[in-house]
């Protein structure tokens, strides 16, 4: 000990290149995320003299982002506990939408239903969609991932891809191969308030107002409850958790249940907000939400929410300015850039996989 403390201190040599690299790693992603809003903000200011158009993009982006945030929570929960990308999660979300839309018809909700009936009906639908998606997710884990827990990493990922395709085809069988319009129950486009040219519609209000309580409930559950504690313990070290008397299998199932519940809620909100459902919506949503989860730092709940909102805004700006046909490419480009420069995301810590 003494010898080492007496040894002359070698000055840490920091050359410029290293310092630049540190800066890029630290702030590069944030700068990258700011590029689009700033560029288009300046363009708006010079064109119209106001930021109304950008503001509208941001509002729409936030409400889209609320949906992605809910889906991203499922990715981040599952990844946090078993380090698996639950590739079928987007499809679980899609099934949530389909269940909701089907249930509207069953209980006779139409655009003409009164407020009281609508609120009660939607609440029932929410519960049903959550239950359906949650149970579906648990089932996927039971059939597809649990038998492969000891197998190489590749194996469960491949079954996940397989399940994703199976569920897409369930969607095709259910509603056919093309997008299906559903009744606009909440009159999603109707304006609630207009602030300096930025209009906020009922859909926007619903998406954000439904998402935020759910996120708080989830975070509270993970932080406070016994099961949440078990989840965190299992995520840290499954072996040690087992030794402490935690039933690891049940805990993992519960994690999938929670993820599925969030996806189901997102499915209902998506159906109400977009008023269109499609068997392929889950694939796209899954990848966007995964990007969101990675952007926030996978395994970090608040990171997933933050990432969801950011991706929502980027997506909306790109839809509005560059063209919807390029949006997936832009989102994926962001995904690749994050992977290269900051795989741990905005709020996450370095993990083994992404280090």
């Amino acid at each position, binding site marked *: 000990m003494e010898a080492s403390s007496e040894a002359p201190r070698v000055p840490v040599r920091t050359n410029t290149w290293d310092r630049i690299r540190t800066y890029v790693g630290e702030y590069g992603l944030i700068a990258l995320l700011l590029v689009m809003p700033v560029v288009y903000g300046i363009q708006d200011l010079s064109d119209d003299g106001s930021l109304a158009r950008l503001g509208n993009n941001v509002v729409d982006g936030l409400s889209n982002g609320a949906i992605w945030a809910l889906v991203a929570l499922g990715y981040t929960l599952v990844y946090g506990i078993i380090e698996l990308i639950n590739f079928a999660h987007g499809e679980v979300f899609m099934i949530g939408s389909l269940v909701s839309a089907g249930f509207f018809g069953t209980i006779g909700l139409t655009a003409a239903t009164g407020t009281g009936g609508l609120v009660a009906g939607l609440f029932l639908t929410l519960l049903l969609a959550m239950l359906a998606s949650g149970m579906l997710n648990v089932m996927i884990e039971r059939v597809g991932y649990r038998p492969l827990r000891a197998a190489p990493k590749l194996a469960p990922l*491949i079954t996940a891809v397989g399940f994703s395709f199976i569920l*897409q085809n369930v969607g095709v069988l259910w509603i056919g191969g093309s997008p299906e319009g559903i009744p606009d129950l909440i009159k999603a486009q109707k304006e609630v308030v207009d602030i300096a040219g930025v209009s906020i519609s009922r859909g926007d209000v619903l998406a954000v107002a439904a998402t935020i309580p759910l996120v708080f409930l989830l975070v509270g559950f993970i932080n406070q409850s016994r099961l949440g504690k078990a989840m965190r313990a299992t995520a840290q070290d499954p072996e040690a958790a087992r030794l402490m008397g935690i039933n690891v299998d049940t805990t993992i199932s519960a994690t999938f249940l929670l993820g599925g519940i969030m996806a189901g809620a997102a499915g209902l909100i998506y159906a109400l907000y977009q008023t269109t459902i499609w068997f392929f919506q889950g694939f796209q949503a899954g*990848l966007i939400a995964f990007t969101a989860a990675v952007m926030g730092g996978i395994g970090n709940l608040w990171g997933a929410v933050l990432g969801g909102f950011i991706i929502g805004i980027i997506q909306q700006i790109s839809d509005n300015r560059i063209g919807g046909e390029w949006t997936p490419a832009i989102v994926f480009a962001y995904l*690749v850039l994050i992977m*290269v420069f900051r795989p741990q995301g905005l709020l996450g810590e370095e993990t083994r996989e*992404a280090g």
Partner: protein
Amino acid sequence: MTALAARPAGEGGPRTDVRTLLVLALALALALWMASEIEMNMFMAFVAWVLIAVRTIFHENAWVTRATVVGLLIWALVLPLAHDSGGAFIEDATLALAYAVMALGLNIIVGFAGLLDLGYVAFYALGALTSGWFMSGFFVNAGGGEGFSLLVGEPASTLPGVHLNFLLVLIIAVGVTTIAGMLIGLPTLRLRGDYIAIVTLAFGEIVGRIVINGDQIKIAGEKVTNGRQGITPIDKIDLPFLEPFQSLELRPWYFVALALVLFVLFVNFRLRDSRLGRAWIALREDEVAAASMGVPLVKTKLLAYGTGAAFGGMSGVFLGSYLNTVNADQFQFSFSIFVLAMVILGGLGSIEGVMLGAIVLTFINFNFIPDVFNDYPSKIGLDFDLTELSFGIFGFLLVIMMIIRPEGLIPERRRQLELKEGIGVGDTELGTSETMFEAKA
């Protein structure tokens, strides 16, 4: 222990246990039934079965192995002569061979090096695009509107656009896709496992988007692709000393595809047994251990991506010319899964298995699902179109294979050991591990 069963496989005797014979009998029935359904010559199906049966029974005898390889080669060469040159069977067989080239390429990335690539369609797209650029009238302004041609005969040489010889385009495509493969590999170098899958998937989707919207991108005044319209027609293959190929005479196409497969097979076998191949396998088994043993990670990974991508590009050029169109709809994510399913079904890392997987899945996709099984749902009173569900069927296949037989139909021995680490050390081919324990006892 009966007399028939349980002769330890290591001793080199013929394998005549009950289980093997049962499997072979089942294979014969299946082969004949399939042959009748896909308009294949029954005699050729029977010959194929005999060759495989001999190989299976005398699996330890090196001479038999060599003889059956030669036999299969001759069989593959004779196969088109036994069928109608414009018929459906040759059409699908050629497609199967082209897909086999791709599956063998993906096998290098996923099977050998263990890097799960979910965006393999990108290389197919780039290869096909290369054929669209250099073997069609796509660049109308080339050569001042007169067209530019190199080593091609009539009528391509007189048309506007760029028309290069098929072999030249093949070389260009290999170059393009190798570079693309390495570029796509670069960002994944720091990543492992699932993250690689997602990054490659993202690249695959980006390339797909560029193909779909390529008519909006202008480089030096020229569009990059034709967007949703697709590029068509593409020149037919025009090889030296041969007549230009015809779209209704499919035998020459089959032989070109077969030549590509043989070339790729040769490269695959040589690579697998080379220093590089061993480095890939070491990487797959344990990256940290491999690195500390002196395997250069960056070079090894990039070479895996590059080689695998090059085969995808080769197949892309061939398919561009064969299908006569380069269309954005061909390059969807589901195609990556289609090729991945071939690799998984056959056995990750197993060259023979991947060949089998490619052939089986091509015929299932283009023959059995649309033609043979399609009436079944309506027969049992269900109303849906099975062709819509083909990828659900492949998804189901992926799940089932991973859970029941993760090592694939024809497992690679080393992979099988990895999967069953600790148990069944020794010859585990065809599940003889129990027999081996019996023999020991």
